[in-house]
C-alpha cells in the first residue's frame, strides 16, 4: 500500500513538472519578446547589453502606429456590437421551443467558427465583392462580426440553458408580455455571458490578422501593420508595439475573466 502512495506522489510530481514546463513554454517567448523591446540597439538578438525606453517613445510618436491602434479598436467595438446582438438572438431562438430544422440551424450557426482562417478570409473576400462592399473598414467589420457570431451564440446558449423557466412564467403571470419579460428577466440573467462573450469578440477582432489582411483597404489594422513591418525586417520598435498590444489584451482578458466569474457567482 505504501508503495502505491509513493508511486502516486511520484506521478504527481512528474505531472506538476510537466505543467510548469508548459507554463514556461507558453510564457518565455512572450517575456523574451517584451525584453527585446527595451534593447538599446537596432539589432534584434541576444544578449541584451544595455537598455532603453526610446523604442516606446518612438511608438507613441509614430502616427501610423497610433492610427492602427485606434482603427483596430474601432473595428473591434463595431463588429462586437453586431456579433453580440445577432449571436444572442440566435441563441434565444435555439434554446427556445423545439422546432424542425433546429439541428441544421445550429450547424449553420457554428459554421464560421469551423472554417479554417484562410478559407474564411477568401470566402468573405469573394462575397464582399459580389455584394459590392469595397475592401476597407466596412468589409473588415462585417467579416469579424460574422466570424464572431458563433462564439456569442454558444456562450449565451450555455447560460440560457440554466435559466429557471419559472422566473419567466412568473413574469408572464404578472402581466409582462414576452418582450418585457425578455428585457427584464432574461437579459439581466444573461448579462455575465453576454459580457464575457463581448470581451472575447473584442479580443478576437483586435487580434485577427487573416480577415483584416484580405478585406482591408489601404489603412492597416494593428496586426496587419505589424505583419508588414516584420516582412521588411525585425526591429525593437515592433517589439514595443507588440508589447503594448500584449499588455492591453492580457489585462482586458484577465479582467473579463474575473468580472464574469463574479457576476456568475452573484446570480
Amino acid at each position: 500500500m505504501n508503495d502505491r502512495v509513493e508511486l502516486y506522489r511520484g506521478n504527481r510530481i512528474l505531472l506538476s513538472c510537466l505543467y510548469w514546463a508548459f507554463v514556461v513554454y507558453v510564457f518565455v517567448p512572450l517575456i523574451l519578446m517584451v525584453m527585446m523591446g527595451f534593447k538599446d540597439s537596432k539589432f534584434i538578438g541576444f544578449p541584451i547589453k544595455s537598455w532603453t525606453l526610446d523604442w516606446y517613445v518612438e511608438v507613441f510618436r509614430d502616427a501610423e502606429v497610433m492610427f492602427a491602434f485606434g482603427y483596430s479598436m474601432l473595428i473591434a467595438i463595431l463588429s462586437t456590437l453586431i456579433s453580440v446582438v445577432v449571436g444572442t438572438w440566435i441563441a434565444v431562438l435555439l434554446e427556445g421551443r423545439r422546432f424542425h430544422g433546429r439541428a441544421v440551424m445550429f450547424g449553420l450557426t457554428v459554421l464560421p467558427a469551423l472554417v479554417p482562417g484562410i478559407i474564411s478570409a477568401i470566402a468573405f473576400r469573394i462575397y464582399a465583392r459580389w455584394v459590392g462592399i469595397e475592401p476597407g473598414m466596412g468589409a473588415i467589420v462585417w467579416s469579424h462580426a460574422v466570424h464572431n457570431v458563433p462564439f456569442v451564440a454558444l456562450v449565451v446558449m450555455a447560460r440560457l440553458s440554466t435559466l429557471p423557466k419559472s422566473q419567466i412564467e412568473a413574469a408572464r403571470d404578472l402581466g409582462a408580455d414576452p418582450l418585457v419579460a425578455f428585457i427584464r428577466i432574461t437579459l439581466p440573467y444573461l448579462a455575465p455571458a453576454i459580457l464575457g462573450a463581448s470581451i472575447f469578440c473584442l479580443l478576437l477582432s483586435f487580434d485577427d490578422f487573416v480577415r483584416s489582411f484580405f478585406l482591408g483597404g489601404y489603412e492597416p489594422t494593428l496586426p496587419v501593420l505589424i505583419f508588414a513591418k516584420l516582412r521588411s525586417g525585425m526591429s525593437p520598435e515592433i517589439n514595443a508595439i507588440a508589447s503594448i498590444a500584449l499588455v492591453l489584451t492580457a489585462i482586458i482578458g484577465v479582467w473579463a475573466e474575473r468580472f464574469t466569474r463574479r457576476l456568475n457567482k452573484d446570480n
Partner: protein
Amino acid sequence: MKREISASNDAPRVQSGVPDRTFWGRLTGWAPYTAMMRLVTASPKRQFAILAALPIVWVLTQHLGPMLQMLRVSLTDAYPVAPGVEQHFTFDNYLRFFGDSIFWMPFFRTLTFAAAFTFCTLVLAYPVAYFLARHVSRRNQMLFLLILLIPFWVGEIVRTYAIMILLGNTGALNLALKWLGLIDQPIPFMYTGFSMGVGIVYLTALYMLLPLYSALEKLPKSMNEAAADLGAGPWTRFWRISLPMTLEGIASGCTLVFLISTGFYATPVLLGGPSTTVFAETIAGFFHVAGDQWPTGAAFAVLMFVAALLITAAFQKLMSALRRGESR
C-alpha cells in the same frame, strides 16, 4: 402556490385602473406599443416566425452565403467579371490543381503538417490537462487554468513574432545552447518545418487543452482508485481508463486544432521557408496577383476545405468506433 399569491396581490392593481407610473408600466400601457405587441403575439406561430426571421436570414446570407458564393466562383472561368466578357461554367480550376506539383505538393504538405502538429499538441497538452483536472484542488483549478489563458489572449502575429525571437540565429534558444557549450555555431532553426511547427503548436495548444481538461474533469476519481486497488499500475490505469474515457475530448480537441492548423496564413509566411510553402500561401497567391485568378483560388480553397472536413469526419468516425469497442 407562488402563482396564486402573485395573482391575488398584483392582478387587482392592474385592473383597478390605477396607472402604473414606472417606465415599464407606462410602456406597456402605451397604445401603439400594446397594439404592436398584440399584432406580434397574435398567435404562437407568428411570434415564432418573428423571432426566427432574423437568425434564419442572417445564417443563410452571412454564414452559408460566402461559402456558396466561393463554390460558385470556383466553377466559373472569370471573376471578377470584366465588362464585355462572358462568364462560363467550367471545371478547369479544379483540373488545374492536379496538373502541377507546385499546387498539390503544398496541399499534401499542409495536411501532413497539420496532422503532425495536431499530434504534437495532443501529446503536449494531455499531461497538462491531466494534472489540472486530477491533481489540482478544485479551488486552485481556475487559477492554474487562468495562468495558461493569459498568453492565449495575445494575437496570432504577436505570438508568431515571439517565436521568431526565440528561434532566430541570435535568438534565445541558440544563445542558451551556446552558453551550455552544446554548439559552436548557431543552429538555423528559423524558416524550417521545425520553426513552423513550434509556432503552430504554440498557437493552438489552448484549443487542445480546454476540451481535454473538461473531459478529464468529468472522469470520476473513484474509477482510478478502484483500478489501483485491483493492482493496476499508473501506466495501465492511463491506457485502460483515462485514455479510453477521454476519447471524446481527444476527438474534439484534435478536430479543432487540425482545422485551425490548416488555416494559418501569417505564421507559415513568417516562420516557414521556401521548402515549407503551405497551401494557404498558394491560395493567397491567386488573390494578390493581378488578373482573373480568383476562380482558381476559390477552387483551391474549396478543395482544401473539403479535404480538411473529410479527414476530420473520418477521424471522428474512427474515434467513435474506438469508443464503442472500449465500452463493449
